[in-house]
């Protein structure tokens, strides 16, 4: 059973990867070019135009707002790609599933594996730049930890929204909106200290900190920007959310996935 699932995950992951670079001459190089251009544009906007102040680090070597931003973005991008991808991956096999049985969660897991590998390339670009700035330490091992955590957390949400989306295609649009709002609810394009303790009588800083994604993004910043070992409570919070989301999401998906073959 597990063997079959693993083989399917691999098949779907390969398919997703192949589809991504189909008919493109540069192929996977695009996965390097895109993040590099992103950093360049952010450097221009936030370094030259806005002159946003980057958070202070211990060695001060990579105190560039673009790098601060990019560190958070690597994690955030993986999250949104897994969540929105889940809906598309499931939709992509809905006709197939009407004709043959297979453990349907494997298509989402496979898509996530492919997306994860893509974001590893992105993370490697980030690490290479950090090495260039001389801002690197053993804490870098927590970067893959953050990526795994965010992918697993995103999968739990992806499992649920993909089932909704199989019935109501509105889900896709709704999720898109929720994601773009969420992007500004966690400190990615701004630093946490810019957020006031309270606004309109709401403890906004506390609310931001309670967002599970905040903890995961913070792990990646500790790893390659601040070069600090993430606190145990931060890691535990992130891991707890990831495990809880994944477990509940998969449970829900398994209970509902037999209905996919009966959707008209």
């Amino acid at each position, binding site marked *: 059973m597990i*063997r*079959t699932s693993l*083989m*399917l995950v*691999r*098949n779907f992951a390969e*398919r997703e990867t192949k*589809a991504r670079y189909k008919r493109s001459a540069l192929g996977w190089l695009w996965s390097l070019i895109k993040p590099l251009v992103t950093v360049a544009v952010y450097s221009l906007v936030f370094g030259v135009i806005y002159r946003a102040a980057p958070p202070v680090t211990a060695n001060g070597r990579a105190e560039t707002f673009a790098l601060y931003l990019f560190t958070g973005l690597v994690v955030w991008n993986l999250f949104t790609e897994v969540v929105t991808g889940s809906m598309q991956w499931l939709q*992509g*096999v809905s*006709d*197939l*599933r*009407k*004709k*043959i*049985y*297979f453990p349907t969660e494997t298509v989402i897991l496979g898509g996530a594996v492919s997306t994860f590998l893509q974001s590893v390339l992105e993370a490697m670009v980030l690490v290479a730049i950090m090495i260039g700035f001389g801002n690197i330490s053993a804490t870098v091992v927590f970067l893959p930890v953050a990526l795994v955590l965010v992918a697993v957390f995103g999968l739990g949400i992806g499992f649920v929204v993909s089932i909704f989306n199989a019935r*109501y*295609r*509105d*889900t896709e649009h*709704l999720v898109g909106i929720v994601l773009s709002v969420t992007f500004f609810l966690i400190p990615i394009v701004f630093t946490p200290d810019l957020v006031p303790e309270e606004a309109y009588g709401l403890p906004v800083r506390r609310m931001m900190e309670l967002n599970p994604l905040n903890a995961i993004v913070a792990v990646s910043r500790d790893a390659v920007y601040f070069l600090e070992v993430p606190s145990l409570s931060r890691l535990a919070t992130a891991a707890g959310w990831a495990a809880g989301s994944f477990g509940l999401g998969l449970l829900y998906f398994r209970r509902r996935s*037999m209905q996919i*073959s*009966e959707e*008209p």
Partner: protein
Amino acid sequence: MSASSGSEAAAIAVEGVSKRFRLELDRPGSLKEAILRFGRRDVRDFWVLQDVSLRVRSGSFFGLIGHNGSGKSTLLRLIAGIHRATRGEIRTAGRLSALLELGSGFHPDLTGRENVFLNGAMLGLGRRQMAAAMDEIIEFSGIGEQIDAPVKIYSSGMYVRLGFAVAVNVDPQILLVDEVIAVGDEEFQQKCLRHMDQIRAAGKTVLVVSHDSALIRSLCDEAAWLDHGRLRCVGDPDTVVDRYLDHVASGASDPTLTARD
């Protein structure tokens, strides 16, 4: 002698199976509509199968006949695990491979070769095993170089030929076949039927759904007749087919009716 004697090992055991499809008439297509109409859903139940029990002996060829919409294909889909039975239980023993309809189990964007691997994985067969079977599959299907073209450009005949080639070459213990052989050309049909003899000799179990009563008579050891989701009779293929044909000739069956409220 009868299918339900149970003295021999059953490859497929269907026990008291009913299947309800819930059709939401003008079902809300969007969340907005769903919310606006909350609690006022116009849901209608269709019992496609009602209390069906049968046993297919291991190593036998079993035929299912019945009018359009009698529930034959639904029963096959339940056995293949595509749908879950609303009531009752289905047990199968051994690896099951199903040829349910045109291009069953093919992903249109993948090439024939990639689909063969994907299908293999769905049946629990690894790359190495599928790679070993690949030549045989290409040869049997007569697809040739098109094996590396996406299956969406295949003709319906190619779909079926590749589907059949995969289904019989993954070494299944149980093979489910739904009408598909009829889609191929004469030559391929002959090839399939010849292959069926090999499958029989290898002691596999085959469940065939067909309208072709001659095929059921010649191929099967046992047959069952489904009528409006209920099992009318099970037994010797000649007897079952005769009773079915008598019934059709008497004009008693209404081929359009499948719904039961």
